[in-house]
């Protein structure tokens, strides 16, 4: 094992702590919880690489899916008044993050992914999500995030944020429930849409307990976007076919139930790197900026590393 193989190290064993710390970091303005308001600091225009509702009282940044929908929803109005606002900032942000790490933020940063992993630890019989359902997230992206906000507009040219309004359970959990509890002014406004989203959230939570990260795999438009970059990002997964015994230990441990040896850079992979640790044969590795790492313990045991 050469010097090149020893450079990049991700703290795989401590991933849950990183997820917890980043979830707290993205929602660090805790005083808002006591006021029933949302954080309104000037840094909140910074997009975060996660599905983290900006109406969560303590959210420090902007959800890119909410922001890009707002751009699409306002595009026709902006064009009608010659306002040059095309959503380039958010689109560029998503593409830049994807170009560097692909879907890695899903595995390490996203609080909603972390919540799903925690709920899945509840001991119940588990159900594998049918693989074909993973294509549904592209339908959600194309329709609810892009097409409907652009095409269905009112008399002034304004569209709606369809995904946020009708689907997003992160918004309900992180913002809808706390704000309605904390802010008495909002309670009289609760109606059908609120109960719809609460009902949907309850269904999703049941699904989270039964299946592994089903929202990320079947619904999340942000994961759909980042996943498109997995095959072309600077960070890359690799599988050594000569070392892989097809034992499926990586598949059993994978939080999104993929067989990484079939396609190491599949758009479904959230790059949590659990498979790198699981593989007893050192067959799975990752590369970043030309540097590669395999499981740390294997490197120590390998005669070639001495």
């Amino acid at each position, binding site marked *: 094992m050469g010097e090149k193989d020893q450079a990049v190290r991700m703290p795989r064993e401590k991933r849950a702590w990183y997820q917890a710390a980043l979830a707290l970091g993205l929602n660090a303005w805790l005083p808002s919880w006591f006021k029933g308001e949302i954080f309104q600091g000037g840094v909140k225009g910074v997009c975060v690489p996660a599905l983290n509702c900006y109406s969560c009282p303590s959210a420090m940044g902007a959800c890119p899916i909410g922001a890009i929908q707002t751009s699409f929803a306002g595009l026709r109005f902006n064009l009608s008044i010659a306002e040059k606002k095309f959503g380039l900032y958010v689109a560029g942000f998503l593409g830049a993050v994807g170009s560097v790490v692909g879907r890695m933020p899903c595995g390490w940063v996203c609080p909603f992914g972390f919540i799903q992993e925690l709920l899945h630890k509840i001991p119940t019989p588990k159900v594998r999500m049918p693989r074909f359902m993973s294509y549904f997230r592209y339908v959600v992206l194309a329709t609810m995030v892009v097409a409907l906000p652009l095409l269905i507009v009112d008399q002034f040219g304004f569209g709606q944020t369809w995904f946020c309004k009708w689907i997003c359970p992160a918004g309900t959990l992180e*913002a809808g429930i706390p704000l309605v509890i904390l802010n008495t002014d909002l309670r009289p406004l609760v109606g059908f849409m*609120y109960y719809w989203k609460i009902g949907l959230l309850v269904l999703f939570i049941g699904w989270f307990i039964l299946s592994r990260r089903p929202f990320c795999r079947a619904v999340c438009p942000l994961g759909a976007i980042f996943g498109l970059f997995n095959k072309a990002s600077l960070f890359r997964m690799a599988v050594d076919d000569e070392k892989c015994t097809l034992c499926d230990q990586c598949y059993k441990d994978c939080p999104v139930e993929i067989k990484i040896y079939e396609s190491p850079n599949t758009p479904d992979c959230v790059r949590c790197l659990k498979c790198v640790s699981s593989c007893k044969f050192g067959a799975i590795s990752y590369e970043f900026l030309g540097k590669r790492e395999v499981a740390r313990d294997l490197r120590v045991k390998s005669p070639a590393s001495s």
Partner: protein
Amino acid sequence: MKRKLPWVLLTVFLTIMVAGLLLGEYKTVLEKAVTVCLDCIGIG
């Protein structure tokens, strides 16, 4: 060529992002982010 693709993509998207910032889109995102999103919470 394959190893150059991520760099090309990164350059393109950073350029797009900077173009958006120069057009004042940060302020647009900020204005949305600091207002309670009634759609997001199921009240809109």
